[in-house]
């Protein structure tokens, strides 16, 4: 098991290197190929109408004129050991993991990511708890009552849920729940210090989307599992129907759900872009979105890397959990 985890961790590092190379190329190489010069890049950092001396200093500081592989090497090196930038007037120390500076705010990208991550984490985790509980239990009930009114209603709602994006349900709920009926206060969340229940509305909207998906997934899995021979065996032993369904049926149906859950959560942790934008929550998704809107390449690159990291980690956790849940995987 330990060897397995170490092997997977090494694989994850390799994967992240590849992802960083690809993203780096996309964000730095493609604009160059499209005719964006190093002066333009420097100009973005410098702000309005810089003189040639400033531009040259900036280009020199960030190494915009170095060959691309050298720039990439420096970027990776900075992540591992940190970096020191010389602005000419002072030296700015950027400790590892240094992901460069925002062109716009001059802040280290990593600090911004550290600030934003807990916010996105709260959105994702809260919603995840809701959607797993709701989705799985509705899916199980639906499968057990296949063809009944409950099943049909639940699946109709699930279909609606899958089809309705957060910017629709979110805006609608903001308009009615918050502004018209004033049932909930405005969504106002800026960090871990704030009351997490301010996120109730985003949680519900996000969870609705995913719960629908999970209900359908669970239902399909349960319908299949409940036809397995070992379910018949469990019944033949005289176990109560509850034990048969939960301990024997649901347990076996959870593996595929777990896989999807890992991917979904990983994806969300990298930034719940639509949810954050809809409810104006300053999470990682907002950071990435702002970065894109303002052509703030280091921020975009940093946000992408963090998102990739979360997905890779989530996959790793799912793989390890697979072994815990399914003994057949553990022994092979």
């Amino acid at each position, binding site marked *: 098991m330990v060897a397995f985890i170490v092997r997977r961790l090494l694989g994850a590092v390799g994967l992240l290197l590849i992802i960083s190379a690809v993203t780096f190329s996309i964000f730095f190489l493609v604009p160059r190929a499209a005719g964006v010069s190093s002066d333009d890049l420097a100009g973005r950092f410098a702000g309005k109408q810089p003189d040639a001396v400033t531009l040259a200093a900036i280009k020199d500081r960030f190494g915009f004129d170095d060959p691309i592989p050298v720039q990439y090497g420096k970027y990776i090196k900075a992540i591992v050991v940190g970096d020191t930038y010389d602005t000419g007037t002072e030296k700015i120390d950027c400790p590892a993991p240094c992901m460069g500076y925002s062109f716009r705010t001059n802040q280290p990208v990593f600090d911004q990511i550290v600030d934003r991550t807990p916010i996105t984490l709260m959105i994702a985790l809260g919603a995840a708890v809701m959607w797993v509980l709701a989705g799985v239990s509705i899916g199980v009930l639906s499968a057990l009552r296949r063809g009944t009114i409950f099943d049909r209603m639940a699946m109709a709602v699930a279909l609606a849920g899958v089809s309705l994006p957060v910017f629709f349900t979110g805006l609608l709920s903001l308009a009615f729940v918050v502004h018209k009926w004033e049932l909930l206060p405005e969504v106002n969340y800026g960090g871990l210090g704030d009351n997490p229940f301010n996120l109730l509305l985003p949680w519900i909207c996000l969870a609705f989307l995913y719960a629908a998906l999970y209900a359908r997934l669970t239902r399909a899995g349960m319908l299949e599992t409940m036809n397995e*021979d070992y379910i018949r*065996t469990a*019944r033949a*032993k005289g176990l109560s129907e509850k034990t048969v369904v939960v301990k024997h049926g649901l347990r076996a149906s959870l593996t595929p759900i777990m896989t999807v859950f890992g991917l979904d959560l990983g994806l969300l942790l990298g930034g719940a872009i639509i949810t954050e934008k809809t409810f104006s929550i300053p999470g990682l998704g907002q950071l990435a979105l702002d970065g894109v809107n303002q052509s703030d390449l280091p921020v975009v690159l940093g946000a992408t890397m963090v998102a990739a990291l979360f997905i890779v980690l989530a996959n790793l956790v799912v793989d390890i959990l697979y072994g815990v849940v399914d003994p*057949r995987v553990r022994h092979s």
Partner: protein
Amino acid sequence: MADKRPAELIDGPGEQKDGAAAGAPSAFLEVRDLKIHFPTDDGLVKSVDGLSFQLERGRTLGIVGESGSGKSVTSLGILGLHNRRNARVSGQIWLDGAELVGASADDVRRLRGRKMAMIFQDPLSAMHPFYTVGHQIIEAYRVHNDVSKQVARKHAIDMLGKVGIPKPQQRVDDFPHQFSGGMRQRAMIAMALSCDPELLIADEPTTALDVTVQAQILDLIRDLQQEFNSAIIMITHDLGVVAELSDDILVMYAGRCAEYAAVEDAFHRPLHPYTWGLLGSMPRLDRERSERLMPIKGTPPSLINVPDGCAFNPRCAYKDLTDGKSIAERPELRELEPGHRAACHIPLEKRREIWNDEIAPKL
């Protein structure tokens, strides 16, 4: 014990219909006019259509027939394992004085595993892949016995040892996929026997196994039967297994009983053309290889559109001997000799003649 005939087993057809009024029978297990039908979009599937038999403690009934003849559906019906929403079960099943068809789902559940247990066909898919073998036996034991986990675990180890699994103290914590096929079937048997059931239904317990292992498993079942004095229903399509283990044999065709007799009678003086076909399809080592097997032509009928007359009629080589009766009229199951029943329109003398002159010499 010497009397191996199911003679006084079934009441006359008139009394059978009386249902509850007839009261509890004296036999340990008595199935009366059991019907298990499944409504589907294509029509009503009559998987079991009027089946009756009896079984005493310590004795074994072999149910044989082709795939889809209703053998397994019958056994699941006795255990009450059919989904009540999509199966229509009627008739009576009396187990030790209790009627099961009309009983509540919970009452039948309490009997399952304790009073009646089942060994399933494919032990790999019949055991839960995520739980250890020991856990599954402990679970089966603890549903019906209020004991601690330690006591149940000891019992599980005892049971595994009893069915011949080496080092049961260690193997108890193995998962089903770590067992070989034969071991899994032994574990399955240990699980089924964990609560000393009085009725044991074995659904093709050896089909998935090597021949050498088959013999071991059959011996094991026989030994355990002697130890616990259980009644056993052995469901199989392997006549060899029936000859080996059973006292009585019930031949099923298209959800009905074609022939029901003591094993000796069914093998030496069968009175139904379908039984002849089954016997003729059995490979024999003591015959020349050049002699061909005598397979039954055709395939079993769809259970939605069972032929009006005799269900076996389309495949029967002797149907011309009935003056067309087998097309028009369904043959009743009749007691033709003491304890020997068959459902066939061909005149009895003619059948004996065919068997003695045509079939038996070729087997």
